[in-house]
């Protein structure tokens, strides 16, 4: 069964705008990871945030984690057409098993 829930399920924005996606989960975690999936490249790891971290940056990506609310957000700034993809959060609660949400489908309009 899936632990995470991403919201929104789908998001369509203009190129250059910022995109924000949210993820909620149910159990305590070791870390939370965000992945991107498109038909060309499969699932690609974007960023990992540990349970004792609150915010992390990587290029145009900013991830926040609120363990008290069991939620995380992914912000993509200055979106590009190439950012069009599905974005998934995955939580690690045991030693090895990643539990995934259903994903947010992001469309960047030129």
């Amino acid at each position: 069964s899936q632990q995470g829930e991403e919201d929104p399920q789908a998001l369509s924005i203009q190129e250059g705008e910022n995109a924000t996606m949210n993820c909620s989960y149910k159990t305590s975690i070791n870390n939370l990871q965000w992945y991107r999936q498109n038909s060309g490249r499969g699932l690609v790891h974007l960023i990992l945030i540990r349970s004792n971290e609150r915010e992390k940056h990587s290029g145009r990506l900013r991830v926040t984690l609120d363990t008290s609310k069991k939620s995380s957000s992914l912000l993509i700034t200055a979106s590009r057409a190439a950012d069009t993809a599905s974005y998934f959060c995955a939580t690690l609660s045991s030693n090895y098993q990643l539990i995934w949400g259903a994903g947010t489908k992001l469309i960047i309009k030129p």
Partner: protein
Amino acid sequence: GAGVSQSPRYKVAKRGQDVALRCDPISGHVSLFWYQQALGQGPEFLTYFQNEAQLDKSGLPSDRFFAERPEGSVSTLKIQRTQQEDSAVYLCASSTRTGVTEAFFGQGTRLTVV
């Protein structure tokens, strides 16, 4: 190799046929995972190997599913007597350690059972 490689990329099987899906992980990666992904959903865990040992197969949906990694590198996921509900993308991932760090995914095998 440079990344995780899966073959075949696409497989069409007649209901009742047996299929074998192959995964070549990144060289030296200890951990290997198989996931099943239905259309519009996130991946669902199937099974986990640490080297050649299958430490968790709790996600395998039935005893028709079998996975092995005999030499701790290449892995094969076998599905016997395929049924329509087995149609999905099967993803393989590997990582250097047991899930603490990022997992590297293959492109997946899209299985369609007709």
